[in-house]
């Protein structure tokens, strides 16, 4: 089996790839910005709750306070400190995004690789199944599922995973189709390896980069969806996310009360995080598709911010097949 494995990129090649990736990110102001924003939020999510302490459930504070040094974002109707609540919500929102997209990645990659590698009737049925879920309006399906399953953190994660995987499956499938024709897969097949083994040992490592790149976009989508679901009142009731803060502020009339510090910070946080993931996703595309890099260097655009890669990858139009609504679906809300 060692003879087969060496055909896949070796460790040295992989280290080189990591270095290359970092070079692309460093060389692109926009993706660097994405990395900086994301790092900040991850730090807040991991360390923040230890620094600010638990959300005060005893409501020791006065309700509906305006922002002050003691309460940076003021307090909500039951007297919870909104700064503390937002810090905790950062953890929950990122966690939901991460876990849900990991789940959806596993489903999407599994189905995509199987369809692409097995081909024939398997491919036809699996893709019919995928396309079926793909056409369903994401947010409406998620709302109905969440309403049926009931509001809890686990259920919201499941709902997001179920609605988010089809886009991934389609991308991974088309990549698998090209890898299937490569020499090292033929060689593995000749040594008598089973389909399952080839998919795991030969195909998966080679689509893994694409899976990762897709995850960045899926996380953004998942955070978006969680925020919308929570705002619409079917999100988890056992923990605070940005969406739930927005829901409570809206229900309590923060808009007419003029409590801007209640609903502005969580929204800004969503925008920043989703934007960061989009920018990083664009960089990933560049890493995976060196043609974009060359085109960019060739483009007469010295110094100015160029997100051609971002625009192109978000909304690639593959003629002559009908262009997809993937980029829109990803938002879901």
């Amino acid at each position, binding site marked *: 089996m060692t003879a087969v494995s060496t055909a896949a990129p070796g460790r040295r090649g992989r280290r080189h790839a990591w270095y290359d990736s970092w070079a692309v990110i460093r060389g692109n102001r926009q993706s660097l910005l994405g990395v900086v924003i994301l790092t900040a939020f991850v730090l807040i999510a991991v360390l923040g709750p230890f620094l600010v302490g638990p959300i005060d459930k005893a409501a020791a504070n006065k309700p509906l306070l305006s922002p002050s040094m003691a309460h940076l974002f003021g307090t909500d109707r039951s007297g919870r400190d909104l700064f503390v609540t937002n810090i905790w919500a950062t953890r929950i929102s990122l966690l939901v995004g991460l876990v849900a997209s990991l789940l959806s990645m596993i489903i999407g990659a599994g189905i995509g690789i199987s369809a692409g590698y097995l081909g024939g009737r398997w491919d036809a049925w699996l893709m019919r199944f995928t396309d079926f879920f793909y056409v369903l*309006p994401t947010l409406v399906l998620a*709302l*109905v599922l969440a309403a049926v399953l009931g509001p809890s953190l686990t259920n919201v994660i499941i709902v997001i995973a179920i609605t988010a995987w089809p886009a991934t499956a389609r991308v991974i499938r088309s990549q698998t189709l090209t890898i299937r024709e490569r020499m090292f897969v033929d060689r593995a097949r000749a040594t008598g390896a089973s389909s399952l083994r080839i998919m795991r040992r030969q195909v998966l490592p080679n689509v893994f980069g694409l899976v990762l790149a897709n995850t960045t976009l899926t996380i953004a989508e998942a955070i978006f969806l969680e925020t919308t679901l929570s705002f619409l009142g079917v999100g988890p009731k056992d923990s605070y996310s940005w969406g739930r803060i927005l829901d409570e502020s809206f229900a309590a009339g923060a*808009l007419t009360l003029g409590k*801007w510090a209640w609903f502005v910070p969580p929204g800004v946080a969503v925008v920043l995080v989703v934007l960061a993931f989009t920018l990083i996703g664009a960089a990933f595309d560049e890493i995976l598709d060196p043609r974009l890099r060359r085109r960019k260097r060739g483009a007469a655009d010295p110094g100015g911010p160029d997100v*051609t890669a971002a625009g192109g990858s978000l909304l690639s139009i593959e003629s*002559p097949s009908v262009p997809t609504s993937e980029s*829109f679906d990803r938002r879901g*809300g």
Partner: protein
Amino acid sequence: MGSAYLLRKAGGAVLTLFAIAVLNFFLFRMLPGDPVNSLLPRNVSQEQKQALRTRLGLDQPVFPAVVRSSSGALTVDFSTLPDSLLHNQFLTSMGNLLVLDLGMSYSESKPVLEVINDHLWPTVLLVGTAEVVALVIGILIGIRAGWRRGSRFDSLSINGSLVLYAVPLFWLGMLLFYLFATPNGIALLPGQQMVTPGLRHSDPLAYWVDVIRHLILPATTLALGLIAGNALIMRSSMVETLKDDYVTTARAKGLTDAQVVRRHAIPNALLPTVTVIALTFGYVLGGAIGVEEVFSWPGMGTLTIDAIHDKDFPVLQGLFLIIAACVVIANLIADMLYGYLDPRVRT
């Protein structure tokens, strides 16, 4: 257009619609517990419960040989077999669907179709307005950005679109509401409902002026979200088109830049854009839900949220079915449009 292509696409759409109906049926049968319990107050007698069950058809087996036991769980019971092959909830509900009978709403004692119909036009008005505005503005921005690629306008519009793309539409709606519909900002416009409550309109004109004033904020919110996507699609389509050979040929013929863009690039770049936009219909309806909720716009989005809170599952089921069907039909139209505009895909 080749009739084989057309038939294949239409057949696929019909199959998808059927699959949606089946999914819809099972999704709501998965609900734990007896729906009758959540419909009636606690202190009603068993007979009353049974009567309601019969009326709603819930006393039938769910599926051939599958019944709901008294505890609410689904169990397999073969003793019902010869009878349950024909008399079961699945066949009944599929049959009802064929005659567009979506059942009765739990919370309003009206047929589901009527309830949905009451909320249909506000959504059509909102989504239609936003879509038209976003189409015009988005495409114009996309043309300019794609034509002058790398210019200040280009990078400005791309960056703006990317940021706008990351904004949850309902939150954008909250900001606009705060800024333009409350005294905290400048209270320019009404931000709630579709008409001023309690106001008696003397003539249709006054009524429409009132509606349009209420429409401005939610439609702007939705349109802003759509403009970002449309501009990005149109831009990348423009960039691709300008690279094509016929554009080079047109330039070589000695046409001016403006002529090349107007006569050759724009018509060809519009082609994929229009289809992509038709494909985004599901997204538009999804986005409208949050926006309607913020502005209490009395459309299907608000109805969806109300149905979820009231546990009005027949309405929710009907909404899911109708919205999904709209999306499937929009996709079919997009497919056909594309096949019509681009002969290469017709095989």
